[in-house]
């Protein structure tokens, strides 16, 4: 059993959690009383990560790339500049790198040393991304990991793992599903899952959504 993170079914450790609640509240009290943090700033940070950032941003970027070849070209050349040129997006972090999945090559992103993840376009990473099983195995057994996500690739598809060992951040541009010709950007964005932008999933096909 992975001990790196709490899974939902581990959440019956009531006493442990209340201990954490107490300790965290105590530290916040100390830092506030000593004048190091403002509770209103903390509230705002929590609000940002809960409501402003998330995979919906990445999904809009991917959908735009699917319908606009010139944007896609710029995205793959310099993702930070390309996204920051779009109207209606908050600036994304520096050094965002977009990598394109094709029938020949499938990209997967991991951070073996900690939890580096493109917050500005995908939000906070899910627990599995930060867990010991993913961090240890994505680099040595990527096909086994993909199988656990229900993804099996054609044998001719090569796999490329990106270990996020610096402040560069990676966004996978998944393949556009067949049967979406003529779809609007908004319709397409709904097919772009978080996992498809990390490389542990594929974009949802229209036949799947119809089910």
């Amino acid at each position, binding site marked *: 059993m992975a001990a790196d993170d709490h899974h939902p079914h581990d959440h019956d450790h009531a006493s442990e959690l209340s201990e954490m609640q107490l*300790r965290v509240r105590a530290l916040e009290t100390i830092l506030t009383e000593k004048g*190091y943090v403002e509770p209103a700033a903390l509230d705002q940070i929590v609000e940002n990560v809960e409501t402003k950032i998330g995979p919906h941003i990445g999904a809009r970027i991917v959908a735009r790339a699917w319908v606009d070849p010139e944007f896609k070209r710029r995205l793959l050349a310099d993702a930070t500049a390309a996204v920051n040129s779009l109207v209606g997006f908050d600036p994304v972090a520096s050094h965002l790198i977009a990598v394109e999945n094709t029938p020949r090559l499938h990209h997967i992103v991991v951070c073996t040393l*900690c939890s580096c993840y493109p917050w500005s376009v995908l939000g*906070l990473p899910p627990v599995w991304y930060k867990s010991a099983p993913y961090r240890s195995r994505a680099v040595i057994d990527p*096909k086994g990991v993909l199988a*656990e996500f229900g993804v099996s690739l054609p044998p001719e598809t090569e796999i490329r793992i990106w270990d996020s060992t610096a402040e*560069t951040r990676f966004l996978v541009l998944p393949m556009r599903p067949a049967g979406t010709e003529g779809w609007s950007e908004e319709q397409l964005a709904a097919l772009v899952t978080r996992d498809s932008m990390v490389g542990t999933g594929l974009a949802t096909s229209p036949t799947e959504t119809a089910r």
Partner: protein
Amino acid sequence: MTNSIHDMGGMHGFGPVEAEANEPVFHEPWEGRVLAMQRAMGFTRLWTIDGGRASIENLPPLIYLAASYYEKWFRGLERRVVAHGLVGDDEIAAGRSLRPGIRLNRKMTAEDAKAARSASFERPAPGPARFVEGERVRTVNINPTTHTRLPRYARGKTGTVEAIRGCHVFPDSAAIGAGDNPQWLYTVVFSARELWGDEADPTVTLSIEAFEPYLAPA
């Protein structure tokens, strides 16, 4: 510490990856408060993001493995505020402040938090890049007792420079308070066979983001 439990790439025995459907951003409200305190205290610039990482990596291995993600952050932060003399051990034990705080140069306000600009780690280059795209390179075999971003599985391996990513703060220096010491950063690609041996899948390649001091000509 470098060769500690956080450097997990290639380890066996942790079991399958378990994804949670419709996962919330935070499972408990205290997790959000920990993240927020981490960000707000990082804003003071009393330590670097790499110093923050190092304090988590330096947790005792049994605690690192048993603690949840935000509990690790919490323990790292608690250590850091004490180590920097901002909070006393007696105050942690008491659960409240026992004396006034020291004066900080920067304190995050709600307005700062709203602007939420992420930091850039790119720096002016002190000199030209040593390697070019397409060049064969070998990673160094280092085992420092302080922070590094060269994973164990990628030490002493031969790969190819795929891209030059600019000149960035060098984590190995920044983590120990030795300044930015900017270094060129490269994407270096290895075959799975180079990393894991002849039995590895020939259709798999892997890249790391490698700072120039991690590389030598192959």
